[in-house]
């Protein structure tokens, strides 16, 4: 089975570094970006299977990154990460084309399941 390549985007470096390790242990190839601009750059350069994207980020937020990806017609499933306060943003993201969303703090198994579902769909 092909190892899935995931781009994890969150401005919390302590979070992304840990998640990179955990997803790595689950046989994913994970890269991390800490800003929206960095994420867009990585997406344009790399061949990712799934984008795990935090909604609230300084500068370009998760929804803007997703909109830009859609604008570039990149067929990339997006899973949004959000806190309780921005659940409405996540729901808005679903309407705008996100594959799924998860509330922080996340359950890693749920995230893995949602990643696989997103790739399969």
């Amino acid at each position, binding site marked *: 089975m092909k190892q899935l390549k995931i781009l994890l985007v969150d401005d919390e470096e302590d979070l992304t570094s840990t*998640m990179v390790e955990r997803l790595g242990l689950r046989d994913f190839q994970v890269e991390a970006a800490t800003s929206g601009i960095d994420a867009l750059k990585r997406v344009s350069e790399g061949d990712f299977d799934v984008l795990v994207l935090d909604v609230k980020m300084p500068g370009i937020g998760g929804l803007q990154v997703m909109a830009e990806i859609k604008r570039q017609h990149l067929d990339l499933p997006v899973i949004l990460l959000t806190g309780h306060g921005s659940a409405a943003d996540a729901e808005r993201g679903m309407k705008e084309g996100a594959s799924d969303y998860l509330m*922080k703090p*996340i359950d890693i198994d749920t995230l893995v399941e949602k990643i696989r579902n997103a790739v399969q769909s």
Partner: protein
Amino acid sequence: MNTDSPSKPIPVSRSERDPKGGFHAHYRRLWLYSVCVTAFVSLTPLVIFTWVNFYQYRKALREEVIHPISRLASISRRFMDDFLEERRAALTYVARRESYEDLCDREKLSRTLMDMKESFGGFVDLGVIDSDGNQRSYAGPYELEGLNYKEQDWFEEVCVRGIHVSDVFRGYRNLPHFVVAVRQHDIENGNFYIVRATIDAEVLNSYISSLDLKPSSDVFLINRKGVLQTASRHNGAVLDQCPMAVPPFSSRTEVLETAGEKGEPGILAYAYIEHSPFIFVVLKHPEHVMESWLLVRSNILWFLGTSIVLIVVVILWSSTALVNRIRDADHRHDNTLHAIAYTNKMASIGRMAAGVAHEINNPLAIINENAGLLKDLVSIDDKPLERDRLLRMAEKVIRSVVRCSSITHRLLGFAKRMDPAIERFALGPLLEEILSFFGKETEYRRIAVNFDVPEDLPMVESDLGQLQQVFLNILSNAFAAVAEGGQVDISVEAVDENMVTVRIHDNGVGIPEEHIDHIFEPFFSTKGEYGTGLGLSITYGIVENLEGRIAVQSTVGEGTTFTVLLPIAMRR
């Protein structure tokens, strides 16, 4: 945007004022003002009315006293005029009817004297004196024939004026009497002679006695030198010098006010008796003049005093009741406003709580992921645990816990300051603490925050909890007004040694001109169902209550500046 009008401030709590003076002094001044104004309005007409009545009564009573005295003096004057005129006319008649020779006949003269005594009364004797002053004939109880009067003043006067009425004197008889003499020309020899009669002064006393005067009145005759011509009740016996000054001449009856021994007013009426040296005098003793007046004055003063006491008691009672009611109403008002302010602050905390929950989720997520990683390493990875890796994980967890802790402490620190308290603190840290609640928002929305607080800014003495509320409300509005990528400037400076000013400027949408005048009014809101309309109203009330001022300047499309002027130390 919540908003409050400068013309209608809402003090958050009057009871928060300095209990040593401000609060109680406010109601004491209100009570004093109420008492003074009510007393002035109600007592002034009463005093004026009483004063006018006082003088009208006095005037009326004075007229009441003067009129009968004046009338008595006038009637008596006419009586005296008639009495003397009658005697003079009788003498003139005798002198004309009888020839000089007949008059010189003592027997005939005695018969004439008898006729006059019977007809007129008062005559004591009758004599005829020739032009050389020799007593030619005499009828009466004394032997006066042969006496010569040429050198006497009365003889000269009767020669010149044709008539003479003398002062009362005792003379040879040692009884008070006076003389009436008339001049008569002798047609036969062209010379003249004088018919002279003596009249007993007792007739004058009899007349005065017949007036049946009250003890308070004194009626008597004096001559032009002030010598009593009749006895006086209070001023001496006949021919004593009267202690009062001789009143000035007047051809009419006059009334004068005199002063008694203690300065109390008395009434003097007098009339000069024509063709005589007599002055008729009526004196009303001051004590009796004042008797009626003192009674009326006493009644008026009693009425005034009782009315004033009654009115003052009612004013004191009503003012106290009124101020108590106002104080109770203020107390209820203060409690309501405090409850509103409390609710507003709790609502602010509630709004912040959403942000805080989101902000706290990130460190929680980190803790969660690190705990999960630890579990993964134990359960999935067979490799031995690396010490450095574990330390890194622990540090991440600790950093996240510290983040959570600082967020909750900040929130608790804001929420716990609900009760009024005046303390000294620095404005810079206060503003920084409030700004920290907007930290993530500025980050996510790329809002530039410029914070300019001079290092030497003096500490202020104020209510920290209430100022948190003030700046949180203003900053909330500022951050809500700016668009993504906007700017909020906060600057603080000391205006002088007494005041500091805090300016919060945003480059947001601005406030329309038609809303500017209403933004501090209670329940004015442009947020629709999302705003209570109390935020800026409460802000205005708090600033006023803290002896500060708040102003707003705004231009649509350019932004808004709120300026809060605060005292470095509150007066109360």
